[in-house]
């Protein structure tokens, strides 16, 4: 049995959690997030908690709360896991410093965790997946296909070369005067829309590989919107619904086709796991489930797909089981790609050829 405290402060939210491993199964004993989700709508976007100070002020409180909710004392823990990157350096540093302090005070091992590894290993916590599996990781600004062969063995098969889908939905909502976050509001609006009325591009489908691009879609939406406005002097509700439906259909087609290709690259995958807001969109989820075919489709609950500390504690458990941990030299890393061996997405050589 292993019981770990996890600490997460790499972006907007400050979190702490206690996760216990019994046999091969993980159990989340507590998962506390001091976030600002309730403020999102008011500010037309996600309000970031960027200040290291703000994280530092909340960290000890969320840790105490997580321990109390789990009914666990520091002495009952086996290690302290903390996000060591990638992310905003101030926030990551605050978490790492707290974890180091706790490690020194208690003598417990310190386990540094890559935030993205936390996301990528979540399906093992929630659904007990076995390696290898294919992961479509969509969180915050991230969107990538990962083949997961072990707790520290990730192969990036492709990803977005510009915006992530969540960002595309947010900007679509912004362009059409719909509330933030964009995912749910565009989905709701699209229900009454005709996805075929506007012809939106399917970016990068003509190119081989699993890379995605959503930036051009935003431009296409803007042109389509401006076209309607120029013609009629405004947008009707139906126009807006049709724009949303077309936009969502383009994202669905693109994600479905790229997922099909990623699955073809992983014939031995035990499952296709989709983490993030994408799985919360019924249209996208249905398409991805269909693409998965006979490969089991897994979507961890959304509260464990957004930034949280339970995934960090779990990833810490996975590392610790491999016999890996860190010491006080652990440093906060603003940049930390999961797959260090992956080739850059585009552009290498572009400089010479066209300069």
């Amino acid at each position: 049995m292993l019981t770990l405290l996890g600490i997460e402060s790499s972006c907007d939210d400050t979190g702490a959690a206690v996760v216990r491993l019994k046999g091969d199964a993980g159990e989340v004993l507590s998962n506390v997030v001091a976030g600002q989700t309730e403020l999102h709508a008011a500010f037309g976007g996600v309000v970031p908690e960027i200040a290291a100070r703000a994280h530092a002020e909340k960290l000890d409180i969320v840790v105490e709360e997580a321990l109390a909710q789990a009914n666990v004392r520091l002495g009952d823990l086996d290690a302290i896991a903390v996000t060591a990157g990638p992310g905003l350096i101030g926030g990551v540093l605050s978490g790492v410093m707290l974890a180091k302090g706790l490690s020194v005070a208690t003598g417990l091992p310190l386990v540094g965790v890559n935030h993205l590894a936390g996301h990528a290993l979540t399906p093992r916590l929630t659904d007990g997946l076995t390696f290898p599996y294919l992961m479509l990781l969509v969180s915050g600004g991230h969107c990538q296909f990962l083949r997961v062969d072990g707790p520290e063995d990730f192969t990036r098969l492709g990803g977005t070369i510009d915006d992530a889908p969540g960002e595309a939905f947010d900007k679509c909502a912004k362009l059409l005067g719909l509330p933030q976050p964009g995912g749910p509001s565009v989905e709701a609006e699209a229900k009454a829309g005709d996805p075929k009325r506007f012809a939106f591009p399917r970016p990068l489908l003509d190119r081989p590989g699993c890379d995605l691009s959503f930036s051009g879609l935003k431009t296409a939406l803007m042109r389509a919107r401006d076209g309607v406005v120029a013609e009629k002097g405004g947008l009707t509700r139906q126009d807006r619904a049709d724009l949303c439906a077309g936009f969502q259909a383009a994202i669905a087609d693109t994600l479905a086709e790229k997922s099909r290709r990623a699955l073809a690259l992983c014939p031995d995958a035990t499952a296709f796991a989709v983490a993030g807001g994408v799985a919360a969109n019924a249209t996208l989820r249905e398409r991805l489930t269909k693409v998965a075919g006979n490969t089991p489709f897994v979507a961890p609950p959304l509260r464990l797909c957004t930034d949280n500390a339970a995934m960090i504690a779990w990833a810490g458990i996975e590392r610790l089981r491999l016999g890996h941990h860190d010491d006080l030299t652990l440093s906060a890393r603003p940049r930390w790609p999961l797959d260090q061996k992956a080739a850059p997405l585009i552009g290498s050589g572009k400089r010479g050829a066209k300069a």
Partner: protein
Amino acid sequence: MRQVHAPIPLPDPDATDALARRFAPLLGPGDVLLLEGQIGAGKTHFARALIRALGVTEDVPSPTFTLVQTYEADFEIWHADLYRLSHPDEAIELGLAEAFETALCLVEWPEKLGEDRPKQALTLRFSLIGEGREVVCLSENNEWETRLAGL
């Protein structure tokens, strides 16, 4: 601010890439490019093309969620998106003020800087013109006129 170069037409994405390649050799640490324009005007596209033209071969994701992405080329490059900030003080928290002195900074939504907008900066104002785009170069520092002469 006044114009320090004639407006540059950007009829398609390739033209933006080409402009970024012409800009790259003119820039160095301590330079600040403020990228203005509405959503979809081409700010991130230009920043990404410029970062690649400076020799960075890894991914250049949009910084909208992460607020700042940093890169190591011959010097440090900061790519920041201030869209989500609610107060100029938060830019200080990000470490931008220091980066303005030591790195090449590409800043989207610089309006969020308010009074802290650096005076020596070059502002690139992107707008949609018909089917294409256009960029206007503005600064309070006349030096940019000389530097951009060979663009």
